[in-house]
């Protein structure tokens, strides 16, 4: 082992900077990665070639291909088609539904990004909850956790595992195969599902049972009680006489009633009028609100409430318009902005009605609330307008309003190219990145998705996060910093049994992944644990595998993207995640170590 030298100190300093920036989040994690990519060669800790080698790494190419394949599967509705047979098998029992969907999502997320699979299943789960009247809070968390656990089923399931072969390459260790992790992953998924089946009633919020019948306009009784229904009102001839002008936003502020459309005389229809629209005399208003609020408004503002929808009968019909719950997706550009800044009525002619966050419903002055990832916004509009909003991509819709843009006829091709990739990997033992890219290319050539759609699907943040942190791993290994830290730690603790060492590595990875990203944790820990395992005479490959798997052990805080995504729609609070997440995290480590020991030994 080399003695501590200035280069090592500099590398440790840079690791400190990266960890610090990951924790405080002054800049986004991918920007931190790019910062490393640029500063490490400037400090002569890596060569310029090494600094950018991440961009051409197998990990990056594999993840690009996996994203494109996932987008292809998504585009053909192939996965949606799987849901009906799954439900047939599951029947009506909530625990069987959870088991069936959890296994399905785990398998799918083992070939897709976890967040992609989770987003894909969200609308279906919400529908199931409504049709079978099972509280959504009982379904979403187990399924979301299974999506995360599913990332451990194959080597392309999650970013840490994709990175693993690149990170162990400098140590001349044998690379892992696509399904080498499968037994461990399946054991983890099974353990996770078992926890929810056995202890679900203790660790899951119970939620109100949705027993009431669905209403005529398709929204469930819960939301009608909270937000209300559509009503039509008329302003009298003398509405504007002797009074201050009444604006759309005034009605919302005073009565929590949302004007979704109005007819100005003679018959000029405006949908989702901007908040500052002044309401004139002889105007017909279509509003969404609770009956008592609408009655209060009609009385105080001298409006006439019509018995039924009349002028807007067709426009507010289920076929033409409705309300959808849209979730602020992880990494959405809307994160941190207020609804006032986004100005949905002006840009898309849709009206936000309420915001659901952490189990709370916000109805008053929602325009001023800075949005967060996982917030679910209830939006009313015509389906056409809602489609445009969905196409913009910053919000994730619970109801697929863009059914027309799906290409179900290409489902067979999508399935075929996925199979081709798998056969290339399994039968012909062709390299992972080459096989997956072949599948992705196949989908583009057979027009499952266009090349532009494929480019559009690639998440550059993930790419640069992976590619940017790889040089940090190289620097840690090349300068001997990893070896030095490993030996110093081992010298302090004395020789430990492999099982103890692996448990410590598992716990350390879990702790790291909760505060810095899973990719960051993997890049920093793999060189370290490989050196530690060598020094402690344990299998270094398995030590790296423990890191790759345990960085998916991110359940206690809703920091994982999947958890953040399901938080709003599931009406979960942070404490709900802590309760269930703690159990799963505790079960995760022994199941992982036990299965690795049984199958591979240490």
């Amino acid at each position, binding site marked *: 082992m080399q003695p501590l030298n200035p280069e090592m100190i500099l590398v440790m300093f840079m690791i400190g900077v990266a960890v610090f920036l990951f924790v405080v989040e002054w800049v986004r994690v991918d920007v931190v990665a790019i910062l490393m990519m640029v500063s490490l060669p400037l400090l002569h800790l890596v060569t310029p070639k090494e600094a950018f080698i991440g961009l051409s790494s197998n990990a990056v190419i594999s993840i690009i291909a996996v994203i494109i394949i996932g987008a292809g599967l998504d585009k053909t509705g192939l996965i949606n088609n799987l849901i009906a047979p799954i439900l047939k098998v599951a029947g009506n029992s909530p625990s069987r539904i959870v088991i069936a969907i959890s296994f399905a999502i785990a398998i799918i997320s083992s070939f897709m990004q976890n967040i992609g699979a989770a987003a894909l299943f969200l609308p279906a789960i919400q529908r199931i909850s409504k049709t079978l009247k099972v509280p959504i809070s009982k379904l979403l968390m187990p399924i979301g956790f299974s999506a995360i656990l599913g990332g451990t089923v194959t080597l392309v399931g999650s970013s840490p595992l994709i990175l693993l072969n690149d990170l162990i390459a400098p140590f001349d260790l044998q690379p892992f195969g696509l399904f080498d992790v499968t037994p461990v992953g399946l054991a983890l998924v099974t353990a996770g599902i078992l926890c929810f089946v056995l202890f679900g009633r203790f660790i899951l919020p119970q939620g109100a049972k949705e027993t009431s019948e669905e209403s005529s306009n398709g929204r469930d009784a819960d939301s009608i009680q909270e937000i209300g229904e559509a009503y039509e009102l008329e302003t009298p001839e003398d509405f504007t006489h002797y*009074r*201050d002008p009444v604006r759309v936003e005034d009605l919302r*502020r*005073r*009565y*929590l009633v949302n004007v979704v459309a109005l007819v100005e005389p003679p018959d000029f229809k405006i949908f989702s009028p901007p908040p500052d629209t002044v309401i004139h005399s002889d105007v017909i208003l279509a509003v969404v609100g609770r009956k008592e*609020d609408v009655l*209060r408004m009609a009385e*105080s503002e001298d409006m006439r409430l019509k018995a039924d929808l009349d002028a807007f009968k067709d426009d507010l019909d289920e076929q033409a318009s409705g309300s959808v719950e849209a979730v602020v997706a992880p990494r959405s550009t809307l994160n941190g902005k207020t609804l006032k800044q986004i100005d949905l009525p002006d840009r898309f002619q849709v009206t936000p009605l309420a915001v659901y*966050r*952490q*189990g*709370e419903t*916000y*109805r*008053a*002055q929602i325009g*001023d*609330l*800075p949005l967060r990832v996982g917030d679910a916004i209830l939006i009313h509009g015509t389906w056409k307008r809602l489609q445009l909003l969905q196409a913009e991509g910053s919000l994730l819709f619970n109801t697929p309003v863009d059914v027309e843009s799906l290409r179900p006829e290409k489902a067979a091709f999508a399935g075929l190219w996925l199979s081709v990739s798998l056969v290339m990997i399994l039968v012909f033992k062709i390299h992972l990145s080459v096989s997956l890219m072949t599948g992705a290319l196949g989908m583009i050539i057979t027009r499952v998705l266009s090349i532009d759609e494929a480019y559009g699907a690639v998440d550059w943040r993930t790419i640069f996060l992976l590619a940017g942190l790889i040089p940090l791993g190289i620097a840690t290994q090349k300068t001997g910093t990893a070896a030095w830290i490993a030996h110093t730690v081992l010298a302090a603790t004395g020789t430990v049994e492999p099982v103890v060492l692996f448990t410590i590595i598992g716990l350390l990875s879990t702790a790291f992944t909760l505060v810095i990203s899973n990719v960051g944790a993997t890049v920093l820990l793999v060189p370290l644990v490989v050196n530690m395992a060598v020094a402690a005479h344990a299998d270094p490959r398995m030590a790296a595998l423990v890191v790759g798997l345990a960085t998916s052990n991110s359940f206690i805080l809703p920091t994982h993207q999947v958890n953040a995504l399901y938080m709003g729609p599931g009406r979960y*609070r*942070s*404490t709900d995640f802590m309760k269930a997440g703690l159990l799963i995290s505790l079960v995760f480590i022994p199941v992982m170590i036990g299965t690795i020991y049984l199958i591979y030994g240490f």
Partner: protein
Amino acid sequence: MAIITISRGSYSRGKEVAERVAAELGYECLSREVILEASDRYHIPELKMVKAVHDAPSLLERLGHAKQDFIAYYQSALTRAVQKDNVVYHGLAGHVLLKGVPHVLKVRIIADLEDRVVDEMKREESSDQEARSLILRDDQERRKWTRNLYGVDPWDSALYDIVVHIRKFTVSNAVEFICRAARLDPFATTARSQRKIDDLALASQIKAMLVEVHPDVRVTCDYGNVLIYTVNDDRMARRMKEKVEALTRKIQGINHIEVHPGVSAPKISV
């Protein structure tokens, strides 16, 4: 009719003006009663309340929240007192504590320093210098108080609808001006303006209930829709909401309550 607030310095004859206006219009005249009501309702010794709402906050108090709770109690008592309308109020800070209510006629009465010094000397049998320094100190204290707590200078005439200088104008002239102004249309109580004062009273009442434990809260109320703004996180906000809902169960006029954590409160909030 109207709510008339009269802001005055000591010996500016403002009290006399207020009492005569009230008599002329048949209004109730309020000043010290508000302090008594606040100290009674919120169980604060009267002397402590007077000191808190009269003296400018010390540096230490400005850093902490010591004054905020007294002000909240005072505002709650004041808004409740003037809610019934037809009131002349000549106590502290009426013009800032009743901000945003359309039918409030805001009056400031000022008097010549020399006249005030003579009055003080007569009443306290003190020397010219003693009287002068006492009046100047009192003026300064009140000015600092409003500046520190509300960011406005009470000597800024733009805060008022009428400023009357009792010198060439007599007290009777002032009473006449004010009574005529109070009868004008803009100061007539309408359903909308009554709604404003009811909302302000409700918001102040809820703020007063919360301020001791959550000194940072700001409250708005629009037609009975109460919004509580806090810098606390979601968990604290939820607890606060539960507490508010329990506290306000008996209060009439609340239509809806929400707690918005991490949102900066609008200027109109109390």
